[in-house]
């Protein structure tokens, strides 16, 4: 277990910054899916490595929290290991890899396979909070589009997919309508995870450090993935099962095993995969 470093304030950030973030979070929860601007601070790692998520986590974490950090579903990849160790150092809180034991889960680009429960908080690291940004470069204009709930541009983008490929080819960062009002980016989670956002019992918080925006989806809030009547939203399905645990309904990573093109598919969620294997060993 990593020792708390007492030279830093609890959670690294100073109290004024935490208060600013906290006030922003309360407004974000009150206006689901709306992007609240905040004064993003310089963090001890570069933008693009989860500074938004880290600042949110730092402003909400407390001594009794149990923190889990995942990167693409895995607890043991560079980003996850470093962020988990960072918080262990600057707060001294307990950390875990088990989804069910965590009160606070910071994530890069996945939602755990294990169903979340009431009282848990997910913190998403978001590179680009504005779903309309690739379609409209101006912040002034995108603010107007949100104000007027004018989301036709996004429908055109999805329609162009259908015109070119015969189906909506967008497979991650798939835009959602939150509470029937604001179009939001779910962060680059695979669209496989989008249904987990809808009426989740957990509170979902999103932080974008470089873009200086935060937003939220409260528990039990309708989150609808955009679609058309004749092209309803659907998640991807694969013929493969996980090579380690045999799960057929989790999100899989492709692993290249040699230069001859051999590969295998394993669960992206390392905690879920481990739990499945433990379960099977118990039964065997």
């Amino acid at each position: 277990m990593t020792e708390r470093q007492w030279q830093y304030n609890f959670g690294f950030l100073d109290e004024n910054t935490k208060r600013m973030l906290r006030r922003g979070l309360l407004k974000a929860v009150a206006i689901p899916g709306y992007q609240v601007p905040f004064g993003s601070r310089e963090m001890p790692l570069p933008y693009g490595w989860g500074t938004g998520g880290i600042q949110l986590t730092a402003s909400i974490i407390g001594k009794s929290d149990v923190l889990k950090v995942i990167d693409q579903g895995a607890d043991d990849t560079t980003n996850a290991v470093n962020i988990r160790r960072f918080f262990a150092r600057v707060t001294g809180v307990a950390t875990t890899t088990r989804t069910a034991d965590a009160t606070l889960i910071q994530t890069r680009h996945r939602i755990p396979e294990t169903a979340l429960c009431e009282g848990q908080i997910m913190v998403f690291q978001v590179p680009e909070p504005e779903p309309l940004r690739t379609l409209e470069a101006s912040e002034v204009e995108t603010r107007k589009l949100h104000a007027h709930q004018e989301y036709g541009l996004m429908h055109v983008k999805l329609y162009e997919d259908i015109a070119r490929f015969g189906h909506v080819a967008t497979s991650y960062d798939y835009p959602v309508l939150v509470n029937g009002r604001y179009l939001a980016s779910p962060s680059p989670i695979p669209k496989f995870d989008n249904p987990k956002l809808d009426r989740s019992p957990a509170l979902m918080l999103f932080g974008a450090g470089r873009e200086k925006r935060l937003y939220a989806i409260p528990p039990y809030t309708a989150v609808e993935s955009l679609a058309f009547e004749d092209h309803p939203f659907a998640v991807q399905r694969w013929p493969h099962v996980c090579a380690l645990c045999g799960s057929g309904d989790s999100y899989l990573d492709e692993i290249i095993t040699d230069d001859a093109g051999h590969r295998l598919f394993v669960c992206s969620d390392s905690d879920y995969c481990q739990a499945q294997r433990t379960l099977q060993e118990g039964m065997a």
Partner: protein
Amino acid sequence: MLHPAFKHPVDDAQQTFRSLLDALAQPLRLSALPCLPPALPGLSRGSAALLYTLIDRDVSLWLPSLPDDTLASLRFHTGMNLAANPAEADFLLLTAGTPLPPLSTLKAGSDAYPDRSATLLIEIEAFNQDQVIGSGPGIPHTRRFGADGLPGDFWHQWQANHARFPLGVDAILIADDRIAGLPRTTRIQEG
């Protein structure tokens, strides 16, 4: 004379904030305030905890008339900026018995920035379950709720506030050491 604030400023503010976040994420469900500072004359312990957690020199606060030592203590602990009138305030604290300013006159944000809106901290006498039925984000189906000591037409005004979404104000109701959140998304049915 100055009154003391939180015993452990960092931890107590964090725990109070989590209680606030819970309250707004699960509207009309009671959250306990786990760390209470000593009460200030004219102000409940819960209100003091929320002010120490939310207020600093970056936001403006409207207060009803309060004893001088209360104001001096709050100014010392938070560095607050007092708003001259309710319409300009980011936060408003309404102590028990303070008349409610019409919600429609408070800061409701703009179309592009609905977050630039007021948050009301309202002291009430007690919570009950028999005034209204709420629904909306954070409420699985519906939730029964009531608060003794709210102004008579509060729920009526709240319906108008909800109808302005995404503009509007948000409220936290405080009964001593327990709070309930009322974000603008909460739809209220009377009866």
